[in-house]
């Protein structure tokens, strides 16, 4: 278990819920202006992000835009890639406590992580990191999982513009008991995720 100093969640939610960010989420705008205050809080969030990266080996995620950690005087215009990095930091910090519980020991590809944040379909059916965490918990309740689950974003080779989050695990036991566990998981996932389940799939290798 990793121990770290987390930023004040109120500060983080203030940034995350900022209308500028929300607006940019929808429009994917080219630039966004941050105030001094926002940058200062963002820098604080970045420190927590760094702490996570430095102290855990469980999460793999692309670390981008280190230059955005600078704290300039006055307002600053961030480019798209920097904004993307900021989003990742903030989201990562925001869900840090979840990461350390439900997603502890889970390897998530950068692409899958981004998908959970915003690249999926509409909000109604997008799998969030919280959904992913709940699903991993359900998997652990149903299966005898060996090692670290791996989460990837996989594109359908037969259907254009369709992709899924695939949770891959290795499990102990026989075929029948694991298919029973799979059924149990399917029941739990249907309740947990509802229609979102169509965007999350499970692949297990029986060892």
């Amino acid at each position, binding site marked *: 278990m990793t121990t770290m100093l987390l930023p004040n969640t109120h500060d983080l939610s203030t940034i995350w819920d900022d209308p500028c960010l929300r607006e940019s989420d929808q429009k994917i705008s080219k630039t966004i202006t941050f105030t001094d205050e926002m940058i200062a809080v963002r820098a604080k969030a970045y420190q927590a992000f760094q702490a996570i990266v430095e102290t855990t080996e469980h999460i793999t995620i692309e670390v981008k835009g280190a230059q955005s950690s600078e704290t300039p005087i006055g307002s600053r215009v961030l480019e798209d890639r920097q904004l993307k990095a900021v989003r990742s930091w903030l989201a990562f910090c925001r869900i840090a406590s979840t990461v350390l519980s439900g997603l502890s020991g889970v390897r998530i590809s950068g692409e899958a992580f981004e998908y959970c944040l915003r690249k999926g379909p509409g909000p109604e059916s997008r799998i969030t990191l919280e959904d992913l965490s709940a699903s991993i918990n359900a998997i652990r309740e149903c299966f005898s999982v060996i090692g670290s689950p791996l989460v990837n974003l*996989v594109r*359908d*080779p*037969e*259907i254009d513009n*369709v992709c*899924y989050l*695939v949770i891959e695990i290795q499990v102990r036991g026989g*075929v*029948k008991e*694991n*298919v029973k566990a*799979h*059924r149990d*998981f*399917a*029941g739990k*996932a*249907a309740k947990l995720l509802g*229609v979102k*389940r*169509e965007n999350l*799939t*499970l*692949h*297990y*290798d*029986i060892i």
Partner: protein
Amino acid sequence: MEPRDFLTLAEKLVVAKNAGAAHFRTATGRAYYAAFHQVSKVLGELGFPPAESAEGHVQAVRLLQRSGDTNLEPAGGLLGDLYILRRKADYELQRPDVEKMISAQKAVEIARSIFDDLDSFVADQSRRTSVTACLKPLYKSITGKT
């Protein structure tokens, strides 16, 4: 031909003498298509057939998962997971895990489980009525068909 015939073939491939990677990958595919066609058949009998194209695979899963039936919704999840397994077996030739007998056995067992769920559903008139009422307003948005 009945969808179950694909399942029978999958079962035979798994236990075939000198069965190897190609048998097990093919068995996985047949198990999936058995389940998929059975789902399509049952949904079609209710008046909600998935498309007869690649999109039909996604639609079949979606229709089950939005059926409002506590057993069909998980079956939709199983079908979606089996679809991914079939896709790995058909496309990802570098993956050794889908070349094992136990992987093909798993696919067959998942397909059987989906058949069981569908059989119990078909036998229950009240569930059929309920699912029909649930899917009727959703069908067009899921399939694009009226």
